[in-house]
C-alpha cells in the first residue's frame, strides 16, 4: 500500500510566524518547558535573512534559553495557526489549557463550515490531521472536525478595458479597436459609467503616464470593453461594500448578495439588481405603516388568504434555509410582501411572524419593526414561527378542460366536488357550450384534481 501524501513541511524562514518552542543542545532539538509557553516572537532590527542566509529570527538579541542554548530560528507556516482555531473558539480565554473538557464536550465539532474552495488540499487536510492527533490524545471527542462543509462561490469582478494603440499614448474605443493594433489595459471601474463610457478627463488624471492620452471615439464617446475575471486590486475592478452599505443599507446589501444566485456558484458582480432589492426593503417597511408613515398594525383576525400567504412563506423559507438556498428565500420574501401588499394586510398576527422570518436576512429592519410592534428586543430571541399545514391546503382545484385532448379553458371547483357535480358544472359553462358540437358529446373523462377531457 502506498500514498501520494507527503509529510507536511512545517518550517518557514520568515519573521512573521509562530516561533518554535525548541532549543538545540549539541545539535539536537529539545522542546522548552511547557510552563515557559508562549515563547514570544522577538524583536529584530530587520525582517530580512542574515548575511549567512539564516532566517530573520537569527538577528534577535539573546535568542537563547535561560541556560544559554540557542533557540530555533525558523517560524511555523501559515497553516499552523489555522489548524486548530475552531477548537480555541470553544473556550478562547482559557489560560490553563487549550480548551476545557466541558467546552469541547458541549460544542464537540463544527456543524456547518463555510469557506473558499482554495483550501481543499491545504488547510482542510492539516486541520483534519491536527484534530485526529488531538483525538488520539483524548482531548477532542470527534474524529472529524467539520461535519458539513460548503464552499461558497467566488464573486467575480467586471473589469473595464481600454485599448492602447501599440507604441502610442492613444486609445481607441471598443467598437473600432479591431481597425488598429492595440493592447488591452484594465482601467479603474470607477472611471466608467453604467453605459461603459469612459470618463476621459478622469482617466488622464488617473496615472501620470496617461496625462497626455488622446482618444479615438465612436459616436462622440469612448466605450470600454468588459471582462469577467477575478476581483482584484491589480485588475482595478474591486467593488467596495462600504459605499454600497452607505447608499443602500446593510440589510439591502445582505439580501442582494444572497439574491445574486446559489451560494456555491461563482458569479459576476452585477450592481443592476440592487435597486430592486432596495425597493423590496422599502415596500416591506410600508406594509407596517399607513399613508402618513405612522407605524400601524391591526389586531383583527387574519383572513384565510392572508394566513395562506404567511404559512406558505414559513414553510418555504425554512426548507430553503435548511438547504442553504438563500437566493430562493429572497424571491419568496418578495412574493410574500407583494401578496400581502395586494391584500392590504397589516394584521399583527401575520406581520409579527413575517418580521421573525426576515430577521436572519435583514436583521436591522427586523429589530426596528419588532420593537415598534411592541415586543422587547432582540428579535434574535424570538422563536421561528410554527408552520400549520391546514392553512396552506388548497380548497379549490383549477381544472384544465380539454376537448379531444386540447386544453381550451380552465375551471375552478371546490376540492370535494363529486364526479357528477363536476360533469354538470363543466357542461353548463358558456365556454363548454362553445366547443360542444350540435351532436353533443361522446364521452367525458374526469380525473379528480387532475384533468377533465371531453371527447366530441
Amino acid at each position, binding site marked *: 500500500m502506498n*500514498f501520494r501524501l507527503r509529510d507536511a513541511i512545517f518550517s518557514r524562514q520568515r519573521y512573521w510566524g509562530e516561533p518554535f518552542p525548541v532549543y538545540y543542545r549539541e545539535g539536537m532539538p529539545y522542546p522548552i518547558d511547557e510552563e515557559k509557553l508562549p515563547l514570544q516572537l522577538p524583536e529584530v532590527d530587520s525582517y530580512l535573512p542574515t548575511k549567512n542566509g539564516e532566517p530573520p529570527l537569527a538577528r534577535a538579541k539573546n535568542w537563547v534559553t535561560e541556560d544559554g542554548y540557542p533557540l530555533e530560528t525558523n517560524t511555523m507556516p501559515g497553516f499552523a495557526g489555522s489548524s486548530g482555531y475552531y477548537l480555541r473558539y470553544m473556550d478562547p480565554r482559557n489560560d490553563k489549557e487549550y480548551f476545557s473538557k466541558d467546552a469541547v464536550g458541549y460544542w464537540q465539532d463544527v456543524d456547518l463550515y463555510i469557506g473558499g474552495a482554495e483550501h481543499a488540499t491545504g488547510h482542510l487536510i492539516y486541520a483534519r490531521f491536527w484534530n485526529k492527533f488531538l483525538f488520539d490524545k483524548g482531548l477532542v471527542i470527534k474524529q472529524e472536525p467539520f461535519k458539513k462543509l460548503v464552499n461558497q462561490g467566488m464573486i467575480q469582478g467586471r473589469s473595464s478595458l481600454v485599448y492602447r494603440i501599440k507604441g502610442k499614448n492613444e486609445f481607441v474605443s471598443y467598437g473600432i479597436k479591431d481597425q488598429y493594433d492595440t493592447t488591452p489595459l484594465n482601467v479603474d471601474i470607477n472611471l466608467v459609467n453604467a453605459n461603459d463610457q469612459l470618463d476621459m478627463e478622469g482617466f488622464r488624471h488617473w496615472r501620470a503616464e496617461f496625462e497626455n492620452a488622446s482618444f479615438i471615439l465612436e459616436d462622440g464617446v469612448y466605450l470600454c470593453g468588459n471582462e469577467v475575471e477575478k476581483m482584484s486590486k491589480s485588475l482595478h475592478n474591486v467593488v467596495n461594500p462600504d459605499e454600497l452599505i452607505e447608499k443602500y443599507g446593510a440589510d439591502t446589501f445582505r439580501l442582494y448578495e444572497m439574491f445574486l444566485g446559489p451560494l456555491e456558484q461563482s458569479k459576476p458582480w452585477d450592481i443592476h439588481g440592487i435597486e430592486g432589492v432596495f425597493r423590496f426593503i422599502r415596500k416591506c417597511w410600508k406594509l407596517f405603516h399607513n399613508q402618513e408613515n405612522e407605524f400601524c398594525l391591526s389586531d383583527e383576525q387574519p383572513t384565510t388568504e392572508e394566513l395562506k400567504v404567511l404559512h406558505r412563506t414559513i414553510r418555504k423559507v425554512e426548507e430553503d434555509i435548511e438547504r442553504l438556498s438563500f437566493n430562493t428565500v429572497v424571491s419568496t420574501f418578495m412574493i410574500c410582501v407583494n401578496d400581502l401588499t395586494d391584500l392590504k394586510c397589516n394584521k399583527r398576527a401575520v406581520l409579527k411572524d413575517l418580521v421573525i422570518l426576515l430577521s436572519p436576512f435583514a436583521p436591522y429592519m427586523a429589530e426596528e419593526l419588532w420593537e415598534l410592534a411592541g415586543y422587547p428586543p432582540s428579535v434574535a430571541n424570538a422563536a421561528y414561527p410554527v408552520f400549520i399545514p391546514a392553512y396552506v391546503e388548497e380548497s379549490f382545484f383549477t381544472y384544465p378542460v380539454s376537448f379531444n385532448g386540447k386544453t381550451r379553458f380552465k375551471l375552478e371547483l371546490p376540492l370535494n366536488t363529486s364526479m357528477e357535480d363536476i360533469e354538470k358544472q363543466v357542461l353548463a359553462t358558456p365556454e363548454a357550450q362553445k366547443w360542444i358540437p350540435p351532436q353533443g358529446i361522446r364521452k367525458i373523462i374526469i380525473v379528480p384534481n387532475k384533468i377533465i377531457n371531453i371527447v366530441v
Partner: protein
Amino acid sequence: MDYNFTEVEKKWRKFWTENATYKVTTDTTKPKFYVLDMFPYPSGAGLHVGHPLGYIGSDIYARFKRLKGFNVLHPMGFDAYGLPAEQYAIQTGQHPAVTTEVNIKRYREQLDLMGFCYDWDRVVRTCDPTYYKWTQWTFIQLFNSWYDRKTDKAEPVSALISYFEKNGTLGLEAACSEPLFFIPGEWNDFSETRKQEILLNYRLAYLSETMVNWCPYLGTVLANDEVKEGLSVRGGHLVERKLMKQWLLRITAYSQRLLDGLDQVDWSESLKEMQRNWIGRSEGASVNFPVKGLPEISLEIFTTRPDTIFGATFMVLAPEHELLPQLITEERLKAVNEYIHQAKNRSERERMAEVKKVTGVFTGSYAVNPISKQDIPIWVADYVLAGYGTGAIMAVPAHDSRDYAFAKTFSLPILEVVSGGDISENSYDAKEGKLINSGFINGMEVKEAIRAVITRLVTEK
C-alpha cells in the same frame, strides 16, 4: 417618509454591542449548533464585495438556527500571520504587528457594518501570544508523540523509549522516516545524540533533511499547495527544489484515517475527491531489482501492476534517488549531472502534471528483471518522484502511458504482455485482458496474474 436605514442600522448596532445580544455561553438546556466561517487573513485592501458572500450565508444560517431553539456558536477571528504583512514590513520597515493591527481594525469595522451576529468576546488572532501559546503547545505534543501502527494512534515518545529499552526495534510497527534495526540492550549503549537521532525518526514533529520548494525571492520554503507551475502562488516568483533541514509533521501516518474519515462527513463529492487524490492511496507490491555488476545494491520499486513485470523493459529513477551516484558510469557522468541540475527547478506537482515534456538520460547501468531475468537499462527522469513510493519504477511502456511516451521518445523496447490493446498506437493501461509473452503467467487474467507474481516473489525471497 421612507425607511431611514442609516439611523435604524446605527441604533441597532449600538444596541447589540451594549446588550451583548450575540454573546454565547455553554447552555446544556439547549442543543448546540456550531456555524463557522473560514477566518480571513486581514489584508491591507480590506474586504471587497466578494468576501462577505460566505459570511452572510453563515450568518443567516446561524440566526435561523437560533430562532429554531439552538444555542449557536458563531465566532469570528483573524488568521493574522502571513506573508503580505512581512513583505510590507521589508519594504517599509513597519513592524508587521502594527500593519496587522490596523488591518484587523478595518476588517472589524467592515464586518460590524454588515450586522453579523458574531460573539466578538470569542475573537482569536493567530499572532496573539495567548493564542499561539496553544499552537506551540500542540507542536510540543506532536514532538513528544509517535505513531503506533498496532494501536493505530499516536502514543507518547516515553512509551517508545521504554519499548526500545526492552525490545530494541523488534516487533515495532511504527510510522517512521526510514526503517531502523537494533536489538534489545543496544538502546542503553547509544549516545544521547544517537538516541535523539533515532527518536526523530519516529516523532510526529521531526527535523529532517528534505527536498523542499525553495523560493529565493521570498527567501523561504513553500508547501506543495503554495506552488503552481514552478511559481509561488503568492506573487508568482520562481521556485526551485533544494535540500534543506526542515521541520515536518508526520501527517502521512494518518493517511488511511484521513481517507476513511471522508466517508463520515457531509462534504461535496468533488471536494472529497480532491482530498482522496491528494492523499492518493494505491495498492500493489514491492519488488527488488538487482543491479548488474553491483551485488551489494538493489533497487526497490513499488508497483500496482506486478502482473506486467515481464513487460518491464527498463527502469527509471528520480533525479534525487539516493543510489543514483553509484549507478552513473563515468562516460555518462556529465550528461546525468546536467540533467539532475535542470530537474531541480521543477516542482513535484509540475513534474507529475507535465506529461508532454518527456525528458531523461541513461545512467549507463543495467538492472536485472527478477522474474524474466533480462538485463534492462536504468534511466533517470523527473517524471518519477523521490518521495512517492521508492523513487524508482519498473517501466512497462506497453501498459503505462507515461512509460510509453518515454520509450517512444528514447526508442526503448516496448513489449506487449496484456492482450486487448494496440500498442503500435498507444499503451494499453486497462486492468483487464489475458497475459502474453509472460512465461509462467501466460494465459492468466490480470487479477490472477497479480496474485501469481506476488506468490512467486514471496517464495523466492
